[in-house]
Structures are given as C-alpha cells and as structure tokens.
C-alpha cells in the first residue's frame, strides 16, 4: 500500500509539473503567435501604405504632366491665336483710323487682346514653374513671393540657410516644396487676414526644414481636419509630403499660424 501511495504522490507531482508546463507553454506560444500576428499586420499595413504612396505619387505625376500639357497648349495654341488676332487687330486699327467709333472699338479690342495674352502667359507660367525648373527653388520662391507681394497687401520675407543657388534637389522634392509654399501662401491670402508672411528654408544633414509663419488670425488644425468640406489644402500638403518622406506640424503661436515641415533623406541632385 505504501508503494502505491508513493507512486500516487510521485505521479501527482509529475501531473502538477505537467499542468504548470502546459500553462507556461500556452502563455509563451500565445505571446509568440500574437507578436507574429502583429508583425504580419504591420507588414501588410506597410505594403498598403507603400502602395497608396505610389498611387499618390503617380496621381501627382499625372497632375503635373496634365498641367504641363495644358500650359503648352495654352502657350502654343491659344497664345499663338491671340498673337495672330493681335496682328489682325493692329492692321484694323490702321485701316479704321478715320472712323472714330471703329477706331475706338479696335483700340479697346487691342487692350483686351493684350490683357488676354498676358493672362494666358501668366496662367501658363503658373501651371509650370519654369523658373523652378531652370533656376531652382530659391529663385522660384523669390519670384513667386515678389509676384504675391505685388498683388496683395502682405509683406513676404524669405530667409534661407545652408542652401546656395546652385544646390538642387530632385524634381519631385523641389516641385512638392514649391507647390506647398504656393498652397500655404494662397491659404494665408484667402483666409488669414495676415499682413506678414515669413518663410525659412534650412538644409542640414540631408534634411530640409521649412518654416512658414503668418501673423493672421490662425485656425485650429483639428477643427479644420474634422470637417470634410474644409482642409483640402492641408490634406493636399500632407499627401505631397508623404510622397517625399516629409512631415508637417501645425503650431498655433500667440498670433497667426506656424507650419513646420521636415523632409528627410533629401538628396542633392548632381
């Protein structure tokens, strides 16, 4: 009897150890499985994100190509037609010089044609920033700010550090930054009631820092983003930044608004 009892005790002990081991194994295996699942989910998310990024990039590229085509058509087709029209009108002006009514009409037409030519040229220039392509970001921003300053009551100030005129980045980066600055400036012009805009561009350790600040009435970013009807510009900026590995931070100082943009791995173009 004693022998059986010892055996029972021993077997019970083994079963207790077995029970503990089973429980420990369940904990270990479940954690392992769960971590694996999380890892797989993260990988899937990353692939989806990358796919979305590529899709966005393509859509931006298509948008730029369309802009380019439109600018070319406007310049080459409409511009040429307007030039021919201008020449015809000039001849008409000479011929109807004796008739005061017709002469005045022809002069009016000439003014309208000149305005149209200038408008077509401006639109075409806005669609494809030639200065950006030919002379780089600094010139393009300066030119854009000068134009904005002429057409508004806002004072534009542009400071840059560690960026020379010769320093060029990839077309994608330069175009994105330029479009972002255009978007932010237009937003400030339309909604902020600002009188001053400051832009700082700094390049350090392959990272481009951009600070855009105005002294307007400011806005609440969460409020803007929560309303699907608003914030299209900001969403557009975020989309552009996601393509070039950039981040946007919107800060609310005492007055106005301050956007801080950081674009990492910004390689210089040789």
């Amino acid at each position, binding site marked *: *009897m004693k022998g*059986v*009892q010892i*055996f*029972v005790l021993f*077997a*019970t002990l083994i*079963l*207790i150890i*077995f*029970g*503990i081991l*089973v*429980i420990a194994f*369940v*904990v270990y*295996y*479940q*954690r392992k*499985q*769960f971590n694996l*699942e999380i890892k797989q989910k993260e990988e899937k998310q990353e692939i989806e994100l990358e796919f979305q990024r590529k899709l966005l990039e393509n859509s931006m590229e298509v948008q730029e190509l369309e802009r380019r085509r439109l600018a070319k058509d406007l310049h080459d087709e409409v511009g040429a037609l307007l030039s021919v029209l201008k020449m015809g009108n000039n001849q008409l002006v000479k011929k109807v010089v004796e008739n005061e009514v017709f002469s005045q009409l022809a002069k009016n037409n000439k003014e309208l044609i000149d305005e149209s030519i200038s408008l077509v040229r401006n639109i075409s220039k806005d669609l494809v920033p030639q200065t950006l392509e030919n002379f780089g970001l600094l010139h393009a921003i300066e030119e854009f700010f000068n134009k904005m300053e002429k057409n508004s009551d806002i004072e534009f100030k542009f400071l840059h550090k560690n960026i020379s005129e010769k320093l060029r980045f990839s077309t994608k980066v330069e175009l994105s930054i330029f479009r972002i600055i255009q978007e932010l400036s237009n937003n400030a012009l339309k909604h902020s009631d600002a009188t001053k805009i400051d832009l700082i561009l700094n390049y350090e350790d392959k990272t481009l820092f951009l600070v855009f600040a105005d002294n307007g009435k400011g806005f609440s970013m969460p409020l803007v983003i929560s309303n699907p009807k608003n914030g299209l510009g900001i969403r557009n900026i975020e989309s552009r930044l996601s393509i070039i590995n950039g981040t946007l931070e919107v800060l609310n100082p005492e007055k106005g608004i301050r956007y801080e943009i950081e674009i990492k791995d910004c390689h210089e173009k040789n």
Partner: protein
Amino acid sequence: MFESIFKLAFKHPFIALGSLLPLLPFFVALYRRQYFTKSSKWLFIFLIFFMLSDIPLWITAAYKINNLYYSYTRDSSIFIFLASIYLVGLKSIKDRTYLNIAIFLMVMVLVIQLLKITEIGSILWINRLILGGISLFYFFRLLQNPIIKDILRFPFFWFNSGILFYCLSTVMITFFYKFTIKAGNQPESYMFFTMILEYLSVSMFVIFAIGFWNLKNNKKYIN
C-alpha cells in the same frame, strides 16, 4: 451545532481553509462585478454553489453522519457545473457538440454514482479527466485564435488554468481512490491525501481570484 463545527474546523484547519477560500474569489468577483462577462457570471454562480453545497458537509460531519454519498455526488456535480461554463466560451457548433458529449458522459458518471452501480467514489477520476481534457481543448482553441493581446490579463485564461491545474493534479489521487481517499483507509493516509486535495483546491480558488481580478482588463486586452 456551531460549536461542533468550530471544533471540527480547528481540528482540521486546512480542510476549513479549503472551505473558506472560495470566499477570496467571491469577494474579488463582487469587487469587479461591473466588469462581469457571461462566463465570469457563471463562475461566480459556481462559487456560490460550491460554498452553499459545502455547508451540509460540515453539518453532517459535526453530527458524525456519514456524508460520503453526498460528498461524492457533490464532487461530480461540481465538475459538471464547471464543464457547462465552457458552453459560454466555445462558440463553434462542432466544439459545442464535443462539449455536450463530454458533459453527457460526466452526467452518466454522476448517475452511476447516484445509482451506486459501482463502488462509491471509485469513478470520481473520470469527471476530472474529462474536465481536464476540456480545459486542454479550450487552450488549444485559444492558441488557434490569437485574439488576446496579453493572455496574462485575460480572465478566462486564469479560470481555465485553475481548472486544468486542479483536474490534472487530482486525477491520480482519485484514480487510486482505494489507496488514497477511500473511507476506511488508515486515518493518517486518508487525511494526508484529503489535505493534498484541499491544498490543490485552494490553489484553484487562488487562480480563480486572479482571473476575477483581471476582469477589468478583459476588453482592453482582447483585440
């Protein structure tokens, strides 16, 4: 009557502790009652059933009335009750069918005992083995479906662990019933093995208490 019960409790303090310890998960469950799930509610009812069904054992023991028949019937009922709680946790029809078959077998064991077809107490191990198998099956299903972020904060993991631990560790003692807890054995060895069963039962209730304590984290740690 109370005097006799107290005397008995002081004579066998560990058995008394085994009867009182379900109060620990009971109070923890009460404290966490706002987080009750369907399964934890049933486990809470089980605790009440366990404690209430324990009272007649003390009374009969105090009056030196043979309560072996009642004790073993209660033992089998406890395992059927615990097995039924898994019906809440296992959702698939296939799993529930297996579980229903297992519960049916356990009920059969109880009926065999009630009708005294076999020697009373000699088939107590079957219900333990079946319930142990159910708890292992539950773990198997849990691992197949990794929906829990942190298993150590998942209450039913603790409930299942407690059940598995108790079933596995007591199966041999009940299987070799004739040499361990059969009435009429040498009092020392009978008390020794009864005490081991009480120790293991205490462990199960402590593990249940951990499970009830983690009820608060139930939703937070499930995907």
